[in-house]
């Protein structure tokens, strides 16, 4: 049995899908927003691995095909963008200023936290790109001497929090315009937030997709300078 789980090629994908499906069922049953399938699915996977004493690296290897789909899925975000091209063209200035404001707010507040808590530079640098997509964020972290695994964890937790709280935050700050909502969600919570934006509406989803790309690139350009300001 243990052999099958460490060497088998299927169980990692099965566990990932099964844990996620269980999360969907629980969300349907309870109707609670915090019963998010990604959050619950990840917890179930961790629980299962701990109970069966399986190492994360064995699971990671077996769940490889799931990771493999991240690239084509991100590329597919071109479709909602294409379908909402008019909204994009009409609001270019607003979209770009929103994304720039988001990137500055993110970098600035992480710098502030690093100073307040006198954080270790490696840990602080790992948090700098926490609002952008994992592909860009992990690279930034590696390049600037951070801890890529911490960056990935912070990025995913940011995404889950953004996904769960998107509606609430937009209501709290009276952000009601669909374009502005999408820009906010995508700039703050990358692809995981975009999954929620796509559920809210097609314009929100497209603007959120665009913000992943633009905020990611801006952050990559800004981070080397921000890293020099760390305590």
């Amino acid at each position, binding site marked *: 049995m243990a052999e099958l789980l460490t060497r088998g090629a299927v169980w990692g994908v099965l566990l*990932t*899908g099964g844990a996620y499906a269980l999360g969907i069922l629980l969300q349907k049953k309870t109707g609670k927003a915090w019963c998010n*399938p*990604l959050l619950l*699915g990840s917890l179930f996977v*961790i629980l299962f691995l701990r109970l069966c004493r399986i190492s*994360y690296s064995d699971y990671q290897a077996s769940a490889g095909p799931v990771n493999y*789909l991240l690239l084509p*899925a*991100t*590329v*597919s975000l*071109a*479709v909602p*963008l294409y379908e909402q091209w008019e909204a994009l063209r009409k*609001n270019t*200035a*607003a979209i770009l200023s*929103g994304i720039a404001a*988001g990137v500055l*707010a*993110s970098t600035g*507040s*992480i710098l502030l*936290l*690093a100073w307040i*808590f006198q*954080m*270790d530079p490696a*840990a602080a640098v790992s*948090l700098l790109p*926490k*609002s952008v*997509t*994992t592909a860009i964020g992990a*690279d930034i972290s590696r390049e600037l001497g951070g801890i890529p*695994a*911490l960056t*990935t*964890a912070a990025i995913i937790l*940011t*995404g889950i*929090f*953004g*996904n769960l*709280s*998107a509606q609430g*935050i937009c209501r709290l*700050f009276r*952000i009601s*315009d669909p*374009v*502005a909502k999408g820009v*906010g969600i995508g700039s*703050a919570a990358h*692809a995981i937030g*975009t999954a929620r934006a796509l559920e809210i509406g097609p314009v929100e989803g497209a603007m959120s997709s665009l913000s992943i790309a633009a905020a*990611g*690139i801006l952050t990559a*350009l800004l981070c080397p300078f921000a890293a020099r300001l760390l305590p």
Partner: protein
Amino acid sequence: MKYIFQFLRILLFCFLGELLHSLLPLPIPSSIYGLALLLAALKIRLVKLEQIKEASGFLIAVFPLLFVPGAAGIMELGPLLAEIWLPVLLSIVLVTALVMAAAGKSAQVVIRWKETRHG
């Protein structure tokens, strides 16, 4: 058959993205190059929407699921997170809310300003 061709088309753009990423010295990942190239191909009608619609729809629908393996990696960070849990928690909750508000609100202000200017 249709789905195979659709998926292959998307994979081709992934590959072109990887190619650009290896050729250009910019801090842009393959996925963003691939996304931009596919968007351009759709705009100039090199690729028609029907030629990728179902496969891309499937991939976008399963998007959140794809983050489960990465998220489970948090189990490896226990000791480190025990040390810096407070700034990490603040950066996830407070900073994310702040960024969403700053980006969304700025975009909305510009949109409203343009609307009033143009009547």
